């Protein structure tokens, strides 16, 4: 018995998480319609904003001599669109978690001697990979539309690390929402604010174009430093304090989401 002195459930966190991560990715491959919808969402927004609103909004961009055009607006909103990709996948994760909880297999996992948290980390790790994939696809679309970046490779690396961190943080939050939801419908509604919040940030128009109250909100909400950091990084400029603020928000959201999710998962009996 001494070999089992430490419960396996702590020894096998990594191994079980990797197993659950593989399960999660396999679901994505086997049920691609959800995946297509989630990757399609930021792309649809990209096309909408560039071609429908881009001409007018681009002309109003401050800081561009004589106003900008569609092309300048594309560069301006690309970071915001990347954040939308993060939010979109996070929303999908809430749905996946809620779906998973209605199936009998969760009861099986709960009666097995595995690291119980791996049921959740599988979803989170899966979401990080999916987010990076969604961002790459979105960027490819932006490039097709004429997006060009002057950033160095190192800046792009930091960009992707930050995006991964954002995905990690936001999915811990949406995993909790998926667990808290009493139905799959609820799980697909509660995280909607994550998709809406980037609109009230520095993502689509400069915040100084907003009325006072809204502007305060836009400047202090977590998406703004995230978008500002991405914008600086992808244009090869120093991100400054915004980056540290963004990382701070991510850590805060991740820890909060994790603790909340863990509590919900251990509390909920067979559901």
């Amino acid at each position: 018995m001494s070999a089992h002195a430490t419960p396996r459930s702590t020894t096998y966190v990594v191994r079980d998480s990797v197993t659950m991560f593989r399960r999660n990715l396999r679901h994505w491959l086997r049920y691609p319609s959800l995946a297509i919808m989630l990757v399609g969402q930021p792309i649809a927004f990209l096309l909408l904003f560039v071609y429908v609103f881009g001409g007018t909004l681009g002309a109003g961009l401050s800081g561009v001599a004589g106003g900008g055009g569609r092309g300048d607006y594309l560069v301006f909103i690309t970071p915001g669109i990347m954040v939308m990709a993060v939010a979109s996948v996070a929303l999908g994760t809430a749905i996946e978690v809620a779906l998973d909880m209605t199936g009998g297999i969760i009861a099986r996992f709960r009666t097995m001697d595995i690291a119980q948290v791996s049921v959740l980390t599988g979803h989170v790790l899966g979401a990080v990979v999916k987010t990076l994939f969604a961002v790459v696809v979105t960027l490819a679309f932006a490039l097709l539309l004429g997006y060009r970046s002057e950033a160095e490779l190192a800046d792009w690396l930091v960009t992707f690390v930050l995006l991964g961190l954002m995905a990690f943080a936001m999915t811990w939050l949406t995993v909790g929402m998926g667990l808290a939801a009493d139905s799959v419908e609820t799980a697909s509604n509660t995280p909607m604010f994550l998709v809406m919040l980037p609109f009230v940030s520095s993502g689509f128009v400069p915040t100084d174009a907003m009325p006072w109250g809204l502007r305060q909100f836009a400047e202090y909400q977590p998406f703004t430093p995230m978008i500002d950091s991405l914008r600086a990084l992808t244009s090869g400029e120093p991100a400054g304090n915004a980056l540290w603020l963004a990382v701070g928000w991510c850590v805060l959201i991740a820890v909060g989401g994790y603790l909340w999710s863990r509590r919900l998962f251990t509390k909920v009996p067979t559901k």
Partner: protein
Amino acid sequence: MVQDRHCLDCIDLGHQLMELVTATRSAAGSKDKGLTLTHGQPSSMVRMSGKTAISVAGLHKGYGDHDVLTGVDLEVPEGSVYALLGPNGSGKTTVVNICSTLLTPDAGEIRVSGYDVQRESDQVRRSIGVTGQFSAIDDYHTGRENLKLMADLNHLDRGRAKTVVEGLLERFELADAADRRAQTYSGGMKRRLDLAMTLIGSPRLIFLDEPTTGLDPRSRRELWQIVREQVADGVTVLLTTQHLDEADQLAHRVGLLDGGRIIAEGTPAQLKSRVPGGHVEVQFTNAAALSEVAAVLPEATSDPDALTLRMANDGVASLRRLLDRLDDDAVTDLTVQSADLDDVFLALTGHAAETRDGAEDETKLERAR
């Protein structure tokens, strides 16, 4: 379900009669006390080690105002099969969920494989396998991938995982469908896959919650056979069922759950001896043959209009006497109807085996929480 059982009995009749004859013959000449009379009855040669696999004392569990379990006590020796018999809402699933660490009890001392279910849940989980009432497979994975997933979660090394997975696919007749998504499986195949997943880690104790609910008679038999093989290997089984014949087929001991407690317990034979036994019904082709047989069997009741004769099935001797009187040509049908859950409940509780008042479905209640 009644029709189902009728049908089963008909299929079974040939076997049963043959076994009856064989059994009577050997019973006369041997002292093998393990021999029993029903087809497929579990052998009483239980490989018990003398240790207790499950011990439950004073188990209480309620949801809000509704008490599901009001003091359950039971002991399951290692290597034996214990069946919890009861209607919907009697608390069977709750007992299984508590013993398998899914739910926490309100009160009671519950030890599984020697460990306390609450304080030592990791050790309990390491020793058990559970096949719940609801399909616990991953629909988007193929049969092989489902088993591989379980092998990984049981931390088997690659080589061993492959051997075990392929072995189980063969043994559970899933090899041909191994690379199809579990979504496309039939009810029987899903159940087999479910059980195979439970067995990956070679648990010494398995919980089966209504393992054959929703299965056709053939799949039911196949599943029973699989359970028997496990028992032959010395595995302890706690199963729940709504069907007396299933408990009869598989269990060494049966506990009758009603109103949140066990109201009767014993071997299937002991329980059946406390209830009115089943009966045999013979369908004749003509009235003459019927009255001829009826004349020599005064204890039987005959219905001249329907051309049937009905006799209580109270043992081999009476059956043999009946069979001796029957002429092949004069009989079109013969059915053996055994006592069912309703008979048992009526005899032991004075009320029929109905879902408890206001209990709805136990599982629904749990889900609603």
